[in-house]
């Protein structure tokens, strides 16, 4: 399964970004292979519609789950209809590495 995580930087030490549509990077994590891809968010400074444009980005990567601090009202219904699960993490100090670690230990 592929998961998208919003990230403030392009390394595993980076903190999770609390925003979905205007996050700095998307991390695409593959739970099967353990591979991570850091994608700079081209929509972070969009005048309007950063959320929907970011749905476009993560959905076209084929993710089944998105982890972020919050999601705007425009995108929730679309994620629902795409059967992509949203996970809201209210921990401003959690790093990408720590989130991935949780999935890795779950697998074992």
């Amino acid at each position, binding site marked *: 399964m592929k998961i998208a995580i919003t990230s403030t930087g392009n390394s595993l030490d980076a903190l999770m970004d609390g925003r979905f549509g205007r996050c700095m990077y998307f991390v695409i994590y593959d739970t099967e292979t353990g591979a991570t891809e850091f994608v700079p968010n081209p*929509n972070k400074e*969009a005048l*309007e*519609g*950063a959320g*929907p*444009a970011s*749905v*476009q980005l993560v*959905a*076209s990567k*084929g993710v089944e789950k998105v982890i972020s601090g919050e999601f705007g009202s*425009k995108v929730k219904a*679309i994620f629902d*209809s*795409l059967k992509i699960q949203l996970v809201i993490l209210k921990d401003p100090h959690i790093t990408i590495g720590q989130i991935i670690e949780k999935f890795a230990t779950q697998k074992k």
Partner: protein
Amino acid sequence: MKIAIASGKGGTGKTFVATNLFYVAVKNGRNVTLADCDAEEPNVEGFLQGKPIRKKTVSQNLAVIDPEKCVYCGKCRDWCIYNAIICLEEQQKIYLLEDLCHDCGACLVACKFDAISETERRLGTVTTSVIEEDSVLTEARADVGIYSSVPVIKAALTASGTPSLLLMDAPPGISCPFITTVAPADFVVLVTEPTPFGLNDLKLSVETLEQLGKPYGVVVNRDGLGDHKVYDWLEEKNIPLLMKIPFDREIARIYSQSLLVAAEDDSYAKQFLLLLQKIEALCKN
């Protein structure tokens, strides 16, 4: 001449200043139109009762995508600069976010498969009322729940035509509805109050008008309330202080009865006329 009456903070007295300016301009035989551009909460009509002569419905076109005809090529999405379309080739899904559709028509041109058409969406109304001979009120009134009142404000400005004097009562804040209202103005009157909130929002308005390159001046309402920081800041920035309106229970009483202080008290009529003359003088410079 076009004068916008605006403020960053809500409730500082935009409508109070606009309606009283309108009153003294009419009394002085001017051909004047007042456009109530506070489309989300228009209230000028509470102070100026006129005879409605025209009511126009404002609407916009909204793209409609036919999923039967769509081949999910994504061209419409690429052309939409407002990010209103999500198109997923692999999942064979397409979404239109109605709130983000700006009626630009680009997607209709982009689609080579005849999958996109348009439907009409109502946004609000523009009402034109005659207050007195040669003096008119145009009111922008947005429907509740619409995403942006900008098209309704634009329609009201168009309906206002080109009177010798156009007063525009702007919506509060500094976002698109404010920009739309001040864009055609020759001069902007910023109404504020001498409080920390008033000063904070005044600074935001000034910053915006500086970027737009608009001449402006400030009216301080409820003088005597709060502190002196607004005045200090105006002096420091060399911004013209056009008028001080005292924090006076009598003004509040008159306003709460939907009356105009310039009509009730001759000394205020003189002060508002002076304000109008000051603005005109600053415009000529």
